[in-house]
């Protein structure tokens, strides 16, 4: 509640600064539209914005689902099999250095202009933080707990598997939750990058479309819609990921 109130306060301050800038600089609407002009453009094209927002949300959600599932599977595989970890981890870390901007056009070439390349790009972007955070979490079980588990579990691959399942896995859930939150934060960016590389719908597409027609107020409205979408998506994943780790006390 407190967080929501302070967020609203920050938003109001930002809008006030925006309005003050507009009044002070006196720029025309095709360079810097005022909040009121943006609001009017948004209302006039509300259905258009909403349709495209839903498309972008779909790309974010499906990409997030695919990317985090792949990340979880990769981390579990690395934890279960040391050789896999030794091969995969450096590849993972190195591949994070590839700018997705550079890959996006290739995905469009390979997968066309539909949903698929956007989902693939979003999944790719989300895969890394989830896989790396979860894999690190699986390797950082509190040593005392792990030793206690080893003594209780006994020897053999079954014992190792059960230790992973009943001790290392739950102990790594806070790290997974962190990875999911990081991933959710960049989902909107990834989806828009995918749309900019080639699309016929979505908020990123709408921004380019409005830009090409000098409808800057509509562009601003789409940008704000994207901002709201990104925040809402992050908040949703934040709430869901907390459910993974109910034993972690909230400290405010």
């Amino acid at each position, binding site marked *: 509640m407190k967080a929501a109130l302070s967020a609203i306060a920050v938003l109001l301050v930002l809008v006030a600064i925006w309005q003050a800038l507009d009044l002070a600089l006196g720029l025309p609407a095709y360079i810097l539209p005022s909040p009121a002009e943006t609001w009017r453009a948004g209302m006039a094209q509300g259905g258009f914005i909403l349709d495209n927002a839903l498309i972008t949300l779909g790309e974010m959600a499906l990409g997030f689902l695919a990317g985090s599932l792949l990340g979880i599977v990769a981390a579990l595989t690395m934890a279960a099999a040391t050789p896999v970890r030794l091969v995969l981890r450096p590849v993972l870390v190195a591949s994070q250095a590839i700018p997705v901007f550079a890959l996006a056009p290739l995905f469009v070439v390979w997968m066309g202009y539909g949903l698929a390349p956007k989902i693939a790009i979003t999944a790719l972007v989300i895969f890394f933080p989830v896989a790396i955070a979860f894999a690190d979490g699986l390797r950082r079980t509190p040593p005392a707990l792990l030793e206690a588990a080893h003594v209780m579990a006994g020897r053999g691959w079954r014992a190792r598997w*059960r230790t992973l399942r009943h001790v290392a896995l739950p*102990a790594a859930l806070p790290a997974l939750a962190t990875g999911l939150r990081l991933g959710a934060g960049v989902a909107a960016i990834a989806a828009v990058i995918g749309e900019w590389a080639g699309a016929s719908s979505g908020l990123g597409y709408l921004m380019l479309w409005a830009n090409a027609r000098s409808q800057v107020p509509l562009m601003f409205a789409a940008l704000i819609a994207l901002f709201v979408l990104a925040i809402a998506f992050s908040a949703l994943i934040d709430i869901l990921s907390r459910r993974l780790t109910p*034993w972690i006390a909230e400290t405010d």
Partner: protein
Amino acid sequence: MGAFAAPALSLSGITVRYRGAALFDGLDFAASGAGLTALLGTSGVGKSTLLRIAAGLVAPQTGRVEAAAPISLMAQDDALAPWADAVANVTLGACLRGEAADPARARRLLNAVGLGDLPGLPATWSGGMRKRVALARLLYEDRPIALLDEPFSALDALTRADIHALAARLLEGRLALLVTHDPLEALALADRIVVLSGAPAKIALDEAPPLRAHAALRDALDPGLRRLHARILLALERAP
């Protein structure tokens, strides 16, 4: 425990080098039958390492470890699973062995360690409560050999005395090896006191107190105990 009439633990010729310095150089230690052995030593002498070797968590560079019965371990850190409630923590070992957990027995043991119906998760429990849950888990494992690595060192003196008495009573009939740095603790609980000192560590003293000290400690004037206490302190300080 019936299958293991005489639990026995034997470490022979244990050599451990750590960063060039020898922690142990051909150390022998054995214990058999029921009873509590206190392993005393100053910080860094290697008593925890010796216990971890006995538990199979650390492999010595040379030497043999033979445990003639299954073991359980209670470490300095209570090693509770933060996501699990009291019963789930006590029965964690069953999960790890793929056995069916017995929550009713876990609750009986939680009662036995004086916790009754403990609600919530480890983060909400006091240090003493956490140790009691860890003790209940040790008892749930029901192994003939129990290794305890200063499990109560972080508790305040009064809580510690309570839990010690409880642990000694509940562990009766098992071969228990308790690592501690407190001679009075050893005198209060142990049937046998072993002092490690020096580098590489050697056994500097190995004796049974003249009488079961639980009762005698109330009478701290007992001359036999006081003499032994003095000799333990001497052995602890003995230069390598």
